[in-house]
């Protein structure tokens, strides 16, 4: 298998931190770029999308891990997708019940969580091979990492693009918004800037801390 076998070790700090730092979905694995670029026009949208994904990731990982020994290998992808789709539908209803404004802002990207590579990737590479607790902790880490990534983009784009953070005006009403930041090209610019920063940080910590990279 091309994916490293993660079934052997017990639960360590790295089980959680893997998704936050070493294998951050946005900054390192570059997974789920579609919602990352599309919904991060404001901090609220980014955070909600991150939390929605986190919820789907954790609940589907738990369920998949619970039934991992029951599912025949041949139908595992189909099973995983059904389970993921279920939790996406749940999330869809929940967000509509909480706020329709938010629901319209996130648009089709809620339904599209179902095809987010992070979730199926975690199900296949981790949850289907590990006991429930470990799978949930790992999913929490991945979801947190994704949320952090989205929030970093959303906050930057909202600060530059509207002069606000969480809808609060930061620099007074004379601030000139950088409209490009809330347009699609701005998403790419900001993502690129964050990737640059993150890889600088990572290469720095790698040379200083000297811990091994895989």
């Amino acid at each position, binding site marked *: 298998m091309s994916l490293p076998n993660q079934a052997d070790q017990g639960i360590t700090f790295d089980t959680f931190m893997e998704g936050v730092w070493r294998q951050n979905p946005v900054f390192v694995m570059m997974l789920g770029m579609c919602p990352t670029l599309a919904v991060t026009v404001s901090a609220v949208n980014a955070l909600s999308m991150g939390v929605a994904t986190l919820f789907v990731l954790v609940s589907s990982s738990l369920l998949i891990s619970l*039934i991992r020994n029951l*599912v025949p290998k041949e139908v595992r992808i189909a099973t995983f997708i059904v389970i993921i789709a*279920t939790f996406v*539908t749940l999330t869809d*209803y929940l967000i*509509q*019940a909480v706020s*329709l404004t938010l629901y319209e802002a996130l648009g089709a990207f809620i339904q599209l969580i179902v095809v987010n590579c992070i979730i199926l990737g975690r199900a296949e590479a981790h949850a289907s091979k590990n006991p429930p607790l470990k799978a949930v902790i790992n999913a929490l880490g991945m979801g947190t990492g994704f949320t952090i990534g989205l929030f970093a983009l959303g906050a930057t784009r909202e600060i530059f693009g509207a002069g606000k953070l969480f809808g609060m005006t930061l620099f007074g009403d004379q601030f000139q918004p950088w*409209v490009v930041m809330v347009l699609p090209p701005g998403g790419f610019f900001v993502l690129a800037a964050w990737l640059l920063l993150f890889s600088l940080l990572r290469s720095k910590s790698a040379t200083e801390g000297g811990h091994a990279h895989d």
Partner: protein
Amino acid sequence: MNQPSQIQTPSGGKMIATMVLVASICGVLIVGAFEGTAGAIAENKRIMLERAVFKVLPGAAGVREYAATAAGIQPLAAGEAVPARGVRFYAAYDAAGVLKGIAAEAGAKGYADTVRVLYGYDTKCQCIIGIGVVSMRETPGIGDKIITDAAFLKNFEALDVRLNSDLSALTNAVRVVKHGTKMNAWEIDAIAGATVTSKAVGRGINDSAQKLLPMLVPHIAELKP
């Protein structure tokens, strides 16, 4: 793989059983979630619609949904689809139950995408007395002035949409004119620098009013409680 048992193809029965089991669990979860949130979602939708309608028809306190067709008007249940060639509109009533006005949606292609607005129609003056943007993707800072520009919104304090004598079309089509040249009550003064978006609003309202009002006005008495 280190588990040789997984290499052998399991029987079709086991696969089907697993899928059925998983699907049942998922089905139960979805039905539960739907039942649990349906009330809140319907309430949210109602609040959102009311807020939008009250904004374009100040003083309204209640909303009912209707559809207008060539045959007349009929009430719609929440979420019900509009009959073919019909137009959805909302009748707004004040606290005493008196008809306050009609709200309907208009849309036309703007600079980036369709600009959708909700307009409030006053039955007494036969004019449009307010608009609110439902959705748009116009350039922030230019096209989105249609939400904030006071001079532009002033166009919609009494925009003339009277029907002609045989009630088949508007007496004067709603027209968007260059900034600062509005002469008549049926003209819309465009925002300087945002002409494309202004024109989309005007065209959308004209198209919608031309279609809706001839079907609606002859039956307007039916709306009064």
